[in-house]
């Protein structure tokens, strides 16, 4: 997209004031969204956004500039301005290595590229899911639906001679249903997505089931009573239940917070930090998974990293800048939403690995507690590890059996405690899809786990 000679020139200008490393990132991103509300197509928008980011390191200091103007003048001005931001007393200018192109193994094969499909093809998927949700039950008063697809190509080059690129395609269907009863609304949602083309919804996932699932949850919630708050054992179902590990522990294992000591997990490599039943993995190499890629945004191939092995902390997720600070190797986890952001360490497909417990044994082991069939989003403070998650679909457990449904519950605790309290791990792992926010913007992240038991946790309710 930009001439290789110009990239070379930008790297040279970048290094001209004493930086010891320069990296150019060029991005072209097409995005499309179709929305439905009130049984009608309410909005269709497309976008094409391009830009360049330049990052320079001097030791462990990083400076970053970006521009959406890809004219030669603007790019060179950006390089000069970034170079001026490097502060150094002993000016020693290094020569960059010459650029050698690398072609990467493609693990995310696409059959039908969504950005080249027609609105009609995408609308067929969206409308099928939408009306399946709307017609599920007369209690469903409103449905909103969105189909999104993204086609992102980037090129990354650096002063070590790397020159490579990746094309990352994803699509996602999101249905939100509202059930109304006696002047009160409750909601339910389903949001599957993958690094796939339209075949995701023509071959793998039936859009009808997506719509029905959203309305099923909304109907259950509007017919449920509030849960009384308290401390109790909890069984968390597979799939998006993995959000708890992602938020409460995964973020604390990102070098972004570990490198500056702002993480409860800093300095604990090799130590037992979790229940020995717990093994946790971040794996960006799973073909076509929502959080996968061929290379990260620094051009390093995606990796499978075992984070916790039977309770022992084995690895952090590390980008190149934090690798300098932590004196370790990067792990292929550097990500950013777009050229506007400096990349940093982020999760990909992060999950609690399957264990040996049977699901029925996990449920029957709980005398009085909560079964979380579907989890919602959550938040965490990585410094203290304190978290809070919504339970989207929950049921009481009485005498080892799943009972009546409850609404409005949330799980509250700390990361370091919950990973010690997960004391039963089921066999059937499943992923759920989400968008993860951090200092380098929003990126698609998969969360996963089998059914697990937390022996004791605070459950918020009424």
């Amino acid at each position: 997209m930009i001439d290789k000679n110009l990239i070379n020139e930008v790297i040279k200008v970048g290094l001209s004031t004493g930086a010891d490393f320069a990296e150019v990132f060029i991005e072209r991103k097409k995005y499309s969204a179709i929305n439905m509300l009130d049984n009608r197509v309410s909005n269709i928008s497309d976008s094409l956004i391009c830009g360049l980011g330049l990052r320079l390191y001097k030791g462990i200091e990083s400076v970053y500039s970006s521009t959406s103007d890809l004219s030669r003048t603007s790019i060179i001005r950006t390089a000069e301005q970034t170079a001026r931001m490097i502060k150094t007393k002993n000016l020693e200018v290094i020569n960059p290595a010459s650029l050698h192109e690398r072609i990467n193994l493609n693990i995310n094969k696409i059959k039908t590229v969504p950005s080249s499909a027609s609105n009609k093809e995408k609308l067929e998927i969206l409308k099928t899911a939408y009306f399946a949700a709307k017609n599920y039950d007369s209690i469903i008063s409103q449905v909103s639906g969105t189909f999104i697809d993204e086609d992102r190509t980037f090129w990354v080059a650096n002063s070590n001679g790397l020159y490579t690129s990746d094309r990352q395609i994803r699509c996602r269907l999101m249905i939100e249903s509202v059930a109304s009863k006696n002047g009160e609304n409750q909601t339910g949602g389903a949001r599957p997505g993958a690094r796939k083309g339209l075949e995701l919804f023509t071959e793998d996932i039936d859009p009808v089931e997506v719509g029905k699932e959203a309305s099923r949850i909304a109907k259950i919630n509007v017919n449920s009573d509030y849960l009384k708050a308290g401390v109790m054992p909890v069984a968390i179902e597979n799939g998006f239940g993995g959000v708890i590990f992602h938020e409460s522990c995964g973020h604390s294992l990102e070098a972004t917070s570990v490198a500056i000591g702002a993480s409860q997990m800093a300095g604990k490599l090799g130590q037992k930090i979790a229940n020995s039943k717990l093994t946790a993995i971040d794996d960006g190499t799973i073909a076509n998974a929502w959080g996968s890629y061929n290379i990260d945004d620094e051009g390093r191939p995606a990796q499978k990293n075992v984070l916790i092995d039977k309770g022992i902390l084995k690895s952090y997720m590390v980008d190149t800048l934090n690798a300098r600070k932590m004196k370790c190797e990067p792990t292929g986890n550097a990500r950013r939403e777009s050229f506007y952001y400096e990349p940093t360490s982020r999760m990909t497909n992060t999950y609690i690995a399957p264990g040996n417990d049977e699901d029925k044994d996990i449920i029957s082991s709980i005398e009085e507690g909560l079964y979380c069939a579907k989890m919602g989003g959550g938040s965490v403070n990585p410094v203290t590890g304190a978290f809070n998650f919504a339970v989207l679909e929950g049921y009481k457990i009485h005498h080892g059996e799943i009972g009546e449904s409850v609404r409005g519950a949330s799980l509250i605790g700390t990361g370091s405690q919950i990973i010690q309290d997960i004391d039963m791990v089921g066999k059937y792992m499943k992923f759920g899809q989400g968008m993860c926010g951090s200092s380098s913007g929003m990126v698609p992240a998969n969360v996963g786990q089998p059914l697990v038991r937390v022996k004791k946790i605070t459950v918020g309710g009424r």
Partner: protein
Amino acid sequence: MNFTSLKNKIDKICKKKGIEDYQISYSSSEDASCKISGHTVDSSTVNTDMSFTFSCISEGKRGVYVCNVFDDATLENMVAKAYENTQCIDSEEKFEIFEGSKEYKHLEDNNTPLEKVDKIIEKTKEIQEKNLAKDPRIQESSETSTFAVKSDYKIANSKGLFLEKVLRYEGLYSEVVAKDKEDVTVGVDFKIAPLDEIKNLKAVEKALNRQNATQLETGTYDVVFDTDCVRQILATFCPIFIGKNVYMGLSLLKAGKGEKIANKAVTLIDDPFETTSPVKIHFDTDGVATYCKEIIKDGIQENLVYNLSTAKKAGVTTTGNSSGSEVTFYSLYFKPGEKTKEELLEEVGRGIYISEMKGFHAGANAQTGDFSIDSEGFKIENGKLVQPVKGFTVSGNFYKLLRDIEAFSSDLEFSFPSGLTRFGSAEAYVRNMSIAGK
């Protein structure tokens, strides 16, 4: 490419394709920032960004394309794709291109250059070092970030309307970590002001005051919400005041005005010209003149907010709150009361001061009004803040909360702007809140 050349190019393409109704919304920005943790500059950044949104209308349907590439082939494709999008829409919402309001409020542009990176770094260091030196319990993992931003918004349309606004502001954010034995607490504060005017933040005091917190017993308490907590509650539930959500059944409010929906102490105002706002603007993205409006006055519903198309569907007049294809707020705030924070606490006598609430996107549902939020705070005894407390959830429902707010203090503060939106409130006194603790 400058805006006039872009507009001329698009005019030509639209004319050739027979597209009569269209609009270009253009935004460009420059920003600079610095983040320091411990004593080291973690990163400093400078970004220049530009994009424009082309929207065209055919038989009341609107197709949209967002772009930042200017070559002829891309612009031709952009216009064709936006028009193609109009052909697939079957919404009853009818869009139109607006010829302009009779009058727009005159606002001065702050067109001075962006603050220099060196000054931004210097200011970040100054505040970070002050924070670290204040108390031995303050940890090196504490962070300070400073930023400066300058944005230019322009819209032009096929009816000859042209409007422009330049915004520029800077600010500083500190997150301080305090540790005493194994007790780790965090305090956060920010200030939006010219860098020279930023002297001190309260992040250190907030982190230290939270040390040695104890558990709170489950029960029903009279509470005072910190301004930050009320702002977060308002930010979560403000969609219920959007007219479209009301007619789509996504809000439990009813259309129109005159219904009592809150206690008399509650007046909620949406003001695009709020005096302290760094993001004042005199037009919305439809090109309609913005104005100040009361959403709730003395507990009575006065206005919902609309853009041109949703107002038309609801049979009312737009309130100038258009933002792209959505409806937004400007400075949305609860009108403050007369009493100082100290006087309000004295009135409460005994209860809980809620200083921090976390996890609204997990524990709150904007469509139902329900919330159950992990919180921290202080016991109030004899009208004074005493023992810090943590690890409890505050539960309720926003619709009910509006009716239960007894009073606001005089201490009005605003949140960080997100785009052109920010939320404001003073401390709020609410009786009988349900709290789940130990």
